[in-house]
């Protein structure tokens, strides 16, 4: 692909990649997307528990990146900017679901519709029936707690516990302070502790 060939110096770092993409280099844009898209999809999938919603968020987020990349001014990291777009889209959808009272506890899979908890339980449990039962109960409990978290608590918990982001960065993504993100995480883990206490 001759048209998309990147100059060596422009792929050295992410800033070079962003600048090349801003100048219209499609290959740079594609590489930028592919360096983050798995994390983005994982975040959306874990927050929304729906393949279709995660797919929609993925597409909408990267279309917004494509449309607005020329306005990106390096005021924050690209990661923060991208996650701000993704979490805003997810939070909006979660809030709409709350209003419509349609929080699904099931997910669509290639083998049909499944309870999300059972999917994780099957992965985690051994063939031992007692352990399987325990695992199933644990997953039910975790699903219930996750559904009981506010959209913001859920986003903070997901970004901190599963994506390993620092609270300061999470605060930047959510447009709030590190302290507020810390409080959200505290409330989320407190709810988990209360619900899972007898498993510990």
């Amino acid at each position, binding site marked *: 692909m001759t048209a*998309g060939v990147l100059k060596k110096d422009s792929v050295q770092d992410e800033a070079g990649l962003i*600048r090349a993409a801003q100048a219209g280099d499609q290959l740079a844009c594609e590489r930028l997307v*592919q360096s983050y898209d*798995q994390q983005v*999809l994982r975040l959306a999938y874990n927050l929304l528990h729906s*393949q279709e919603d995660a797919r929609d968020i993925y597409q909408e987020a990267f279309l917004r990146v494509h449309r607005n990349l020329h306005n990106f001014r390096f005021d924050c990291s690209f990661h923060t900017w991208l996650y701000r777009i993704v979490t805003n889209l997810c939070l909006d959808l979660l809030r709409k679901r709350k209003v419509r009272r349609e929080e699904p506890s099931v997910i669509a899979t290639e083998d049909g519709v499944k309870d999300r908890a059972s999917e*994780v339980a099957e992965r985690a449990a051994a063939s031992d029936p007692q352990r399987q039962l325990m695992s199933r109960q644990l997953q039910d409990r*975790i699903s219930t707690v996750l559904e009981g978290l506010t959209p913001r608590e859920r986003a903070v918990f997901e970004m901190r516990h599963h994506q390993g982001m620092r609270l300061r960065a999470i605060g930047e993504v959510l447009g709030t302070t590190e302290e507020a993100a*810390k409080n959200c995480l505290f409330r989320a883990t407190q709810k988990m502790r209360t619900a899972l206490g007898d*498993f510990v």
Partner: protein
Amino acid sequence: MSPVCQQCEEQFSLYLYGELEPAQEEALEAHCAACERCRIALGRERELHRLMDDSTAELPAMLLTSCRRDLAGALAAEPMPIRSWWQRAAAWMAVSGWKPALAAGMLMVGFAAGRVGQRPVLTTQLEQQAVAPALVRVREVAADNQGRVRLVLDETRQREVDGAIDDARIRQLLLAAAQDPSDAGLRFASVDLLRRQPAGEDVRRALMAALERDPNPGVRLKALEGLRPFAADPGVRQLLGQTLERDDNSGVRTQAIDLFVQPGQKDTVDVLQRLMQREDNTYIRSRSQRALEAMNASWETF
């Protein structure tokens, strides 16, 4: 429970996340070393964190691949973002370095100053007349003694053409638009319409050219869809093999392997064996492996 124990317990979670200040961390560790109750409580918190690890779900297989494929199509259909001239210039300067940009800028300023000096010669009437056509080129300029100027203009006007999808004239225009280097969205739409045309030699050639040379992955994906009826053609098969080995977009390669692997086609073995050596994409590797197994061929080259 002492106030110190209570304060420690509230910090266990942040401690395990590594979010405490170094001084707070040291104080907590020192306290736990001396307090058995808090040591046990910290162990329970650690176990809680381990249980919470199970609150994540694995991404379903192929979800990422299909998302990437859909995104490539959606991006190809998107118009180019509208940017002001200074944004384009700033982006270009950032990529190219500021010295050549500055030199070019000075040249442009000099040129513009020269043009402004001559401006009274061109009447406002000309500007009004020149607004209507899409493109205007001044071919000839002449002045008379009364200060009037005569210009000969080449004008390109927009015109609408419509017709049935299988109309030969429409087909020729689509074939030309499918190669327009300036507009990926136009190429995407044209290739999409061409693939719905009756299978013909000119369409096959245009789709092959798009798959081989178009810089936009969305257009290449559309071309691949259009080449489906020609999947048994030797020229197309050779191009599919090249695409699998050379295309830098995994979405395109993923679609190409589905078209390339056909029952009874033994010409795939060499390409599939080479893919097993170098391909990073899990789906393409597993598809190649299954096809090689079905043909009783080795996964490796010797």
